[in-house]
Each structure stands twice: as C-alpha cells, then as structure tokens.
C-alpha cells in the first residue's frame, strides 16, 4: 500500500466577497515508502497548496474535496483531530524559510525535542537523547542543541529544521522549496542530505520546488503541475531528459543550464488565474500546438510515464 495517497484532491479558497479560487483541480498521486518525488511548476500552480492539504494545514477559508490517506489514515475525514494524529509521527514538513520556521526565543534542542514529547509521548530524557541522535544524522554537532536559531547560519538552520522533522520518525517528509533561500553551495549540501536521509531511514520524500536541477539531483520521480493539476508524471530522468507534455518541454527550454549552449526561450502568456473557470486543457491558451480536442480536459495517460495531453496521446507530438 502506498504511504501517501491523494485521490481526486480539490482545494478551493473562498474569498469574503463570494468569489472562489480553484487552486488544486483534481490531483491523484500515490507515493510509495522510500520514494523520492519532486513536484515541479511555476508559482501559483498549486504545488504548495497540494502538500498543505495533505498535511491538513490549510486555513479555515479553504474547502477541500477528495481524500488524503497518510499511512492508511484518512487525514481529511476527522477534521483537525485526525490531521493532528498524522502530523510529525506519520508526516512532517520542512518549510521554505528556515529562519521563520523556528521560534527565535527557544533553544534548538527544545524545538527538536518538543514534538517528540507531545506526539510520541517520550520522556524529556528520551527526547533529549533522540535530539542528539537526529542532530548527528543531519550532520550537526550535538552542541547545537544549546544554541538559539539566530546563532546558526542559513544552512545549519535548515539542517536543524530537517532534524526536527525526522525526530518523530515520520514515514513521509514534505519539503516546500527547501533550498530556495540558500546559497548554491549550501543548496547542494541540503539536497544531498535529503537524499541520503530518505535512503537511510526509508522515508518517502515529496519535495516541491521550481528548481529543475534540484529535482534531477535529488528525486527519482518528477511530477509536473500546471494550473492546479498534474500534467506529467514519470521517472525524473525521463521527464527531465525526454519531456512529453508541451508545458514541460517549454519549462525545460526556459531553464538556463551550465555548460550547454542553446538559446533560452520564454513561455508566452501567463498561467490562468485561479478564479477563472477553466474548461478543457488549462495550458491550451499558451500551447504552441492546439487541436480541436483540447477543448476537453485531457486525462493522464501512459504507462509509467504519464502525460495529460491529447496531442501526445494521439501521437501528434513526436
């Protein structure tokens, strides 16, 4: 059984004036234990909303449809109560800004130990011992436990946040742009650390990022999102070297690559607004190859490497 299962997930944000934004439009995603998945897409395509929904972390003005199963537990059915049951112990999250993810007035050690005391019912002494263990796992000296967040550099702080996340031995680790705020050398260190930890601890990693290189180096599977839906899903190497969806192709051509001579392109137009009603293929307005059937929303088709595009399904795109 998959450790994370999203089925027909929809998220709407309801504005006070009665308008509604459809941020996630029907996502099906199953992640196996130990699998490393990179979720790719532009800002506003629903990647972050999707993983927040999976953790039951959406604000109260969001309405959620479909189902989320984490480790077999239905996260959405029991409201906050069942969501609290899975947080930390079944799934944990590493947020983008390591600076704001920690409480500035508590020592690092306390912040790593607290979830273990509350969610795993560990005694303070056990929690302290485990804190030293996880600090070592993320490559920090045990003395860091005595420090405050402001005393650490950005990279060390992100390591501490990861230590916090793995403290309660979750089965799934969500990471939302875990390296965006960091320098390139430190980015590489954190990417390596995430890959190594998931391997050693048998964790599933779901990493949301707009950095294609990061996915290539850290993930085994790549999922491309556009306008709240998955448009391509397959082995990271296949998706990134032989993309099939026109959007993925353009996204890759727009990305500068070291050591490769080719002109950069930009994708014309902008993604659809979330409060717009979308019928048919959401990418049709920006797509270089539009056919009649694009007026109907394309299903995800394929074997292993799936794509939501009529033209690909009919073999009209090479």
């Amino acid at each position, binding site marked *: 059984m998959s450790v994370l299962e999203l089925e027909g997930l929809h998220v709407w944000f309801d504005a006070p004036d009665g308008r509604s934004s459809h941020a996630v439009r029907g996502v099906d995603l199953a992640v196996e234990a130990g699998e490393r998945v990179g979720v790719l897409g532009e*800002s506003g395509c629903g990647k972050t909303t999707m993983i927040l929904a999976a953790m039951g972390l959406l604000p109260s003005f969001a309405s959620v449809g479909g189902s989320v199963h984490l480790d077999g537990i239905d996260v959405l059915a029991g409201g906050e109560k069942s969501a609290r049951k899975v947080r930390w112990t079944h799934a944990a999250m590493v947020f983008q800004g390591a600076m704001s993810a920690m409480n500035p007035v508590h020592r690092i050690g306390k912040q790593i130990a607290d979830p273990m005391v509350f969610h795993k019912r560990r005694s303070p002494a056990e929690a302290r011992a485990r804190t030293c263990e996880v600090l070592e796992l993320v490559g920090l000296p045990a003395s860091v436990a005595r420090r405050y967040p402001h005393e650490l550099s950005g990279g060390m702080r992100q390591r501490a946040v990861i230590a916090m996340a793995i403290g309660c031995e979750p089965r799934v680790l969500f990471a939302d742009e875990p390296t965006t705020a960091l320098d390139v*050398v430190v980015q590489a260190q954190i990417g390596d650390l995430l890959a190594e930890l998931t391997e050693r601890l048998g964790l599933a990693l779901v990493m949301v990022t707009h950095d294609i290189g*990061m996915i290539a*180096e850290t993930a085994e599977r790549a999922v491309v999102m556009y306008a709240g839906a998955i448009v391509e899903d397959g082995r990271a190497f296949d998706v*990134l070297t032989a993309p099939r969806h026109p959007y993925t192709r353009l996204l890759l051509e727009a*990305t*500068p*690559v*070291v050591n490769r001579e080719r002109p950069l392109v930009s994708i014309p137009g902008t993604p659809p607004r979330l409060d717009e009603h979308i019928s048919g293929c959401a990418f049709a307005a920006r797509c270089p190859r539009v056919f009649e059937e694009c007026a109907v929303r394309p299903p995800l088709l394929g074997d292993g490497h799936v794509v939501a595009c009529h033209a690909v399904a009919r073999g009209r795109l090479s």
Partner: protein
Amino acid sequence: MSAAARAAGNGGEHLLEVRDLAVHFTLKRSLGDRLGRRSGRVARAVDGVSLFLDRGELLALVGESGSGKTTLALAALRLLEPTAGTVLLDGRDVTALSRRELQPLRRRAQLIHQDPYAALDPRLRTRDLIAEALRIHGLASSREAEQAVVYDALETVGLTPVETFAERYPHQLSGGQRQRVAIAGSLVLSPSLLVADEPVSMLDVSVRAGILDLLDRLRKDEGVGILMITHDLATAAHVADRVAVMYHGNLVELGAAHTVIDSPRHPYTQALIYAVPRVHRDEARVRTLPGEPPDASHVPPGCRFHPRCPIAVDLCRVEAPELLPAAASAGGTLVACHLRAAESATHPPREETSS
C-alpha cells in the same frame, strides 16, 4: 605590473573602471567591546577589487550572499561611499565628485533592483513611474515630449500596446512585466551603464528568458554596458561576455564567461560550478564544498578561501594571493590562487616586469 593595472587591461578608456576599491563598514560596538574598551569591529565587505567594463559588454559578478557583490556595485555607482580606491566612469573619477557634480553623471549609470515588487511605487501608474526620472533630471520639455519618451521606452521593453500599459498600476502587472517597467524607468535617461542586481532571481523561470533577452538587446543595439550581479552561474553562462567571481570581498577569478565556466581555475569557482544542480552530469557528483559562507567581519589571514579550500598549502594560510594570469589556461583568465597562477610562489618567482 600591478594587479590593478593588469585587471584594467591595456590602457584605453573603459566605460567603467574600478581600481582597488574597498568598502569597509564599522560595526556597532558590542557590550563586550565596550566593557573591554575595544573599538568596534570592521566588516571588510569589499577589499581591494579592480575591474573594468566596456561599452556593449555584459560582465556577470558572481558569488555567494555576503561575498560583497552588491556592495561593490553600489560603491561603483557611488550609492555607497567607498573607503578607498577609485571609480572611473568614462575616464572621469567619480569618487572625487561632490553630490551636485555627481547629479548629471547619475543619469548615465542606472541601477535595476532585484525585487520588482518593492522597486515600484504602488500608487503611481506606469507612465508616472517611468516619467519620474525624466522630471527629476529636467529632461521633459513638454507633456507631449514626455509621453513620447515614455511610450518609446515601453515599446523597447516590449510592453505593448503601450497606451494600455502606460495606465496600469503595479498591482495590475505580473512580476516579469514589473521588471520591464523598472528597466523602462532606467532607459528613459539613455544610460551608458546599467547595473542589474539579480534582475531575474525573483521571477519565474518561464519569464526569465524574456528579461535576459531584453538586457542582451540593450547592450547590442544601444551599446549599453551591463554589470549583472547574480548568484546563478547558469544564467551568467548564458548571457555574459566575462564573469568575475567574488569571494569574501575579493575577486578570485576573472575571465571570458565560457572559459571560466568550462575550465574554472580557482578551487572556489570549481566548487561553485560543481554545486550547480543539473540534469545531465557526466561525472559522479564531486563532494560539495564543506563549511559555511564567510563572515565579512572575520577575515582569515592569507588567502580568504583557505579554511574551505581542498588544496590549501602552508603558504595559503600566510600570504594573500594576487589576481594573476592563470597557469595552463587559454583565454587569459586571471586567478587569485597561489597554486593556480602561472607565476605562483610555489615556483621560483619571476622578475616583476615594469610597465
């Protein structure tokens, strides 16, 4: 030949020339400093940098956060007062000018900020945002003339139909469009130098290429010299003629973009390039650089990179290397490394050639 003269090339007049520029900030004295009657510490953000930029050239200044890239650029525009060194714009020393004398030169050198969301006044329409600089410099003779210049600038940056975009407020524009407005605002002054501080790092990858193309066109068609600050080597590789790599307030490598990216000489540049994540990687990933980015208030003795350097020798801990031609490098890359320079101290030193 001194390092400064070498970096400046063979005489001639450059658009921008920076010689031995230093910017030091005195930090507030801590309680400990005051109790111990010590003076405040000094952060040496930029410490003796020399480089030049020609008309129509794009030089990428690359480095980690805190390496001094932005400080160097701000000091070159004299938006920060340099502690030492000189800055020549079109051969004229701007470090010696008073504020009033500086004013006419300001329009020749413009800055594009990183964050197009913060750089534009949310209460002004696009046309006023762009015309503001014209008014400050007294360049608009009439409303009609002003409008013609504004429309022209909007056309150049690709915001068409210009009549529609001229009436928009910043919140009605996307990130890429805002950055175009910011660029249009500098262009109306017909600058010869543009300093672009991370011009695309806040933008989605799908619109980055458009902004980079625009910068490329400006230098090719209008001969604008562009100093682009970036931490993204892949972007630098795509658009720059030359790349200057900064570490801890010093230049560590300077050369033609393709030479620096394809065959980096300085161990820091090599680490930076290996660290860039990529889809196609021929060799197994080289171990990432250990350690943390430097702190400008703690300058290690000798080469500033030696605490993180995988090849450091005793000399590196004592003596700071000068920026010298690199050994075994075509294309004349300059490198500040005892082990990688052609006339390094590990070989018998050559005679200093005087020129």
